[in-house]
């Protein structure tokens, strides 16, 4: 559309009661619900109301892919992403689950391939404890490679459902992947057809272990403007999102008071990335986001509300309208897939994959 301003992309991460570790103690928080799926369903619906691109599930209490399915079932357009810890599950299983979710959501799935989880109990006899960090990273990259080969193992037109001929599938368009790698040996093909998005959207976080290269969405902490612009220009493909942890109120004074209150609730030595914090009013945040985005420092933002659900509600009800009024953000979804929202085209079917 001519004259249309370039628009930014928004991803929100949901972690329990918010990214401030003591946030659960705030009067508005619902700590008794943090281990219940319905809480995250409601948050995802709020994010969808705000027309966000993607909601990312980062909570420690509920199996990520199962929760993702519940969110998919209760939303319509917003992308839904979750962590897959590559340390202890097989890529075949993960690829199948994500493909199924991409089908069920009609192309709204996303994932982050993480190397390890702080949340899982220690298995004393699993081999991964023998590996060095660089081996774990290597294995992580091979995991991603296998998953991608599996998603590519069905050509787009392999599913026929031809009742007359009695052909459900065209076997000539489905390929074993015959992967013989250092860490994985997988024959394939995947048990279900090519996902609607070709491949689910892959997220990479520069601050965490796990492959960044080839990620569709790269999340990076807030740095100086110069550093950010340099990073953005070095990124060849995919969208770069800057992390921001907003603490908002009607006035700057109130916002600082809220930030101070939340800080007081911290216990022990909780790790908080102060650099990502933005304490101020909705207008101030919208101003900053506009400046950052139009300078070319990123393609959008990764919002980690300090306090939930209030922080997300305030963002959706007070910041989003400002961005929309300035033509910086969509007023409604124009696409039905996450690739569409993010404007990240699908990989071509890989012609190197043969029988």
């Amino acid at each position, binding site marked *: 559309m001519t004259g249309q301003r370039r628009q930014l992309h928004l991803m929100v991460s949901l972690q329990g009661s918010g990214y401030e570790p003591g946030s659960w*103690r705030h009067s508005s928080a619902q700590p008794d619900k943090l281990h219940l799926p319905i809480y995250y369903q409601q948050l995802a619906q709020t994010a969808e109301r705000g027309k966000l691109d993607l909601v990312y599930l980062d909570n*420690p209490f509920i199996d990520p892919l199962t929760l993702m399915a519940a969110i998919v079932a209760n939303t319509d357009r917003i992308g839904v992403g979750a962590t897959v810890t590559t340390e202890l599950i097989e890529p075949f299983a993960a690829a199948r689950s994500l493909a199924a979710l991409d089908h069920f959501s009609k192309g709204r799935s996303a994932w982050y391939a993480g190397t390890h989880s702080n949340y899982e109990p220690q298995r004393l006899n699993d081999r991964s404890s023998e590996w060095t960090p660089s081996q774990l990273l290597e294995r992580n990259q091979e995991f991603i490679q296998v998953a991608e080969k599996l998603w590519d193992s069905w050509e787009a037109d392999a599913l026929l459902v031809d009742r007359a001929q009695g052909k459900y599938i065209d076997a000539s368009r489905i390929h074993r992947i015959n992967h013989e790698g250092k860490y994985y040996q*997988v024959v394939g093909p995947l048990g279900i057809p090519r996902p609607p998005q070709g491949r689910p959207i892959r997220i990479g976080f520069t601050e965490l272990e796990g492959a960044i290269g080839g990620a569709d969405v790269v999340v990076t902490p807030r740095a100086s403007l110069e550093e950010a612009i340099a990073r953005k220009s070095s990124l060849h493909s995919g969208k770069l999102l800057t992390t921001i942890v907003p603490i908002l109120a009607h006035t700057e004074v109130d916002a600082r008071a809220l930030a101070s209150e939340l800080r007081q609730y911290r216990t022990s030595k909780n790790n908080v990335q102060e650099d990502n914090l933005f304490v101020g009013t909705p207008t101030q945040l919208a101003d900053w986001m506009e400046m950052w985005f139009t300078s070319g420092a990123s393609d959008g933002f990764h919002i980690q509300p300090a306090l939930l659900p209030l922080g997300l509600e305030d963002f959706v009800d007070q910041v989003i309208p400002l961005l929309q009024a300035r033509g910086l953000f969509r007023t409604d979804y124009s696409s039905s897939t996450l690739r569409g929202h993010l404007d990240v085209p699908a990989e071509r079917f890989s012609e190197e994959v043969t029988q």
Partner: protein
Amino acid sequence: MSNKKQLHLGVLMTYAGIHAGAWRHPNTKSDQLLDQSLYREFAQIAERGKLDAILIVEVLSLTERNKKLAEDFPIPSPDVMSALAVMAAATSKIGLTGTLNTTYNDPFHVASKFSALDHISAGRAGWNMVTSQDPNAPFNYSRDGQMDHSVRYERAGEFIDLVKKYWDSWEDDAVRADKKSAIYLDESKVHTVKHEGKFFSVNGKSNFPRPVQGYPVLFQAGSSESGMKLAAQQAEVVFTAQDNLPDALAFYKKLKGTLPSYGRRDDELVILPGISPILGSTEREAKQLEEQFNELILPEIAVKRLSSLLDFDLSSYPIDGPVPFSEINVEANVTKKSRVQLLKDLAQRENLTIRQLSKHTNGGSGHFPFVGTPEQLADFMEQWLEAGACDGFNILISHFVEGLEILVDHAIPILQRRGLHRNEYTGSTLRDHLGLSRPVNPWTR
């Protein structure tokens, strides 16, 4: 309220229906197998029929025959947990059971997934514990080959014990969420899982809460000796393939008879034989529908399926001649011992030709293939229930969703009228529907 014993009824949702020809039938929703909407619709119909549970099985790889992908066969069911979660969103009462195998999964993940599903569904989850028969599966999971039958079951036993320990790690009231005192979790109610076994070694706490039901209901299938032992020790619901009343009765008595040695009561285990009904408003109509389905499978394909099942190539034998069982080694087929035996018994008992026996693989893989009217189905079910051969049935739906609709709209009302099936759900969890008690957390005893 009737004191009459009532049927427990589950329905199996697999492929496009249990019948291999089902997907080609014009009324089958074969192009919706990847749509959320189909699973929601199926679940809602089943709930309308006040059934106890839906079962979705895990299919690990595409169907192959002689090392080639079978093009005439529908694709396997999509991801189990995703499908169940989607069904949970569309319903409020019906149980949601899924298979996750104990061979290619990790106990922590299985425990975590079912805790999640039980909370998503407010206490309606069931876990069908299988070891997996799929011979191709190892090659998708970086393994060299299939485990021996007995090793698989040994692993399964340890796997299940560990999964229960994970579920018990948090006591039911571990979440304190006390804002003032800053105590989120009552650490005295979160226990370390310590497990030192042949297959697994663990030392750590779960990060997920205890399921709503304590444990999801534990289902199990597999009628081999190892399978029955596992069932008697661990299972709360057992699926079984029985194609005649005397055998079903013998199985029921035998399995229930082993319970006391594990300190378990009769009513702690629900036995559900499988039945794959094709229903019509008249017997003739039902037979026509069966023929329609059978016609949709080419005889050569049916024979190929039978060959696959028996792990023996029948293609060079005359299709209208006898099944050469003397040349088929039942014991050698480690993945499907009990099913192969069932087919052999059936063929010998009724003097079936290859063509005839191949028709028995189109339906329920050795489960009872029933063709008739809803009235006749009700008679059949009543007879087996009253004979003491079962506690209910697992109904393998012929084709989606019509097969389920006919069952719910025509057979269920008859059962309800006879007092054999509930008119309304009286409870809200799967345990409630099955009359099973909620396991106490060993940490709180």
